[in-house]
């Protein structure tokens, strides 16, 4: 019988700690599938963030470093300078990358570090319990925005991928989503492309993945996919290639 699907070898055989319906698991699988497809897991060093994906160092079958909050691109820079022939990636959430780590992500892209950044945007701080992120939508409720994010005083969502795409050092930036099967397949191609481009020494690549947080959004997994991502996030965070050269 033909095998149509199997767990990627680069994904460790351990239970993930993510909440039911959270799309981190899919995003992990896409990264692992890319490492398998490019047959590079044994020459890869990943950098885990602080946030929901903090235990990512246990989930990939490759060498890993755990970085301080927001510092993953700096840690990855250090690794890549020592191991220029290795594949180096960061896996970061929106609190990590778009708030406390804005300087590190921007400067790594500016330098054109030949690394791959997987940026999970679920518009909220998950691990700490649903606080407002810079990516939180206007009007969206969070534990630190109990009346919904206010335009005046709290501002409107930051679009990091658009910002990064303005930098000459960033050569591939794409935003994808995990809200349905077709988009998961697009995301899979984008993630693999980002890693392939690193191996081809094409420079800094980043894939932003729109993801769910059913627990902190207070929705069922299906509602989270349809209501927040499809109806609310897509108009603010349009999908597509922002930069490819």
């Amino acid at each position, binding site marked *: 019988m033909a095998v149509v699907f199997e767990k990627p070898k680069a994904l460790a055989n351990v239970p993930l700690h993510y909440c039911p319906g959270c799309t981190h698991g899919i995003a992990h699988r896409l990264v692992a599938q890319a490492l398998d497809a490019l047959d590079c897991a044994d020459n890869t060093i990943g950098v885990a963030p602080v946030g929901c994906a903090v235990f990512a160092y246990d989930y990939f079958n490759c060498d890993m470093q755990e970085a301080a909050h927001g510092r993953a691109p700096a840690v990855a820079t*250090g690794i890549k*300078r*020592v191991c220029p022939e290795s594949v180096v990636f960061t896996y970061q959430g929106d609190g990590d990358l778009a708030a406390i780590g804005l300087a590190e992500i921007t400067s790594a892209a500016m330098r054109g570090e030949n690394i791959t950044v997987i940026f999970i945007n679920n518009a909220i701080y998950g691990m700490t319990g649903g606080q407002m992120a810079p990516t939180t939508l206007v009007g969206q409720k969070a534990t630190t925005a109990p009346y919904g994010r206010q335009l005046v005083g709290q501002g409107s969502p930051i679009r990091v991928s658009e910002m990064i795409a303005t930098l000459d050092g960033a050569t591939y930036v794409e935003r994808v989503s995990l809200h349905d099967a077709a988009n998961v397949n697009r995301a899979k191609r984008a993630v693999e492309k980002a890693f392939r481009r690193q191996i081809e020494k094409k420079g800094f690549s980043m894939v932003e993945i729109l993801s769910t947080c059913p627990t902190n959004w207070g929705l069922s997994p299906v509602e989270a996919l349809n209501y927040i991502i499809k109806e609310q996030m897509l108009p603010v965070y349009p999908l597509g290639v922002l930069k490819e050269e």
Partner: protein
Amino acid sequence: MAKVLMKGNEAIAEAAITAGCRHYFGYPITPQNEIPEYMARRMPQVNGTFVQAESEIAAINMVYGAAGAGARVMTSSSSPGISLKQEGLSYIAGAEIPCVVVNMVRGGPGLGSIQPAQSDYYQATRGGGHGDYRMIVLTPASVQEAVEMTVQAFDLADKYRMTVMLLGDGMIGQIMEPVDLDAVKTLMAPAVEKPWATTGMKNHPGRNVVNSLYIQPDVLEKVNERLEAKYREVEREVAAHEEMMMEDAQIVLAAFGTTARICKSAVRMARAKGIKAGLIRPKTVWPFPYAAFEKAAEQAQSILCVEMNMGQMIDDVRIAAAGRCPVSFYGRSGGMVPTPEEIVAAIEKAVK
């Protein structure tokens, strides 16, 4: 090679290269700018890497990544920049990554001044970052000693898998003195294997993870106990000091780095006046050479601690003296450097 005249900062940078450091990450701040400038020039010549980071925070995290991948790595800064590095230093301690950090201390607090000071003693010896951790802190008093300690710093870092800080001051960084860089090569220890480094699984058995997160409290407690045992070992093996005219000393000066050099002049001047002065100069301030001061407290009438701050190392001297003799203090701060005459006056006051 004959001795060459070099600025302290540049000599430290070249000594790091001699020690096999090929990766340097830094950020500009006075009075240590000659280190990143020298590294920017030299690293490409030795197939090394120089990265000017976007901040001291980024620089220390680049150190984390690079040293976690097994390389000999250095960063340098001065007081306000070292404050920014504390997050990284704590993570580096937790993940047991070896690295070398230079702090050319300037006056504080805040933006302070750019002149030499020793007011980061507490931060260096008590841990400016969070959690139970230690760094080995070496305190050079000359450019020659700074290059020797730089080489020693890399060896100690690799041996104990911890940060070694070279705690200088604006004077050590800026002064020009003759140095013999060839001589330091003979001080180098054999290279240490790093089977734990993240170099890719094809280069080692199994999967390597560099991490400081232990979510189970009982596991983290065990890690802290293991770290503590290592720190006790470092205390036994690494503490070092120099003594001057201690055989019959009745008034013992305690000073490190630049201040200790000035104290040497003061000790000679006091001896010329018939005062039996001596000096104990810690070459490591963590681990602190408590035993030397315990002995001095038994023998001397009093100890005078001289520092370029408002009194920080005096806490360690008092711990060692444990009430066995009076401990007094003379210090200048804000970037002011004490003169030998001022110190002699403080000695005369202490022996009255």
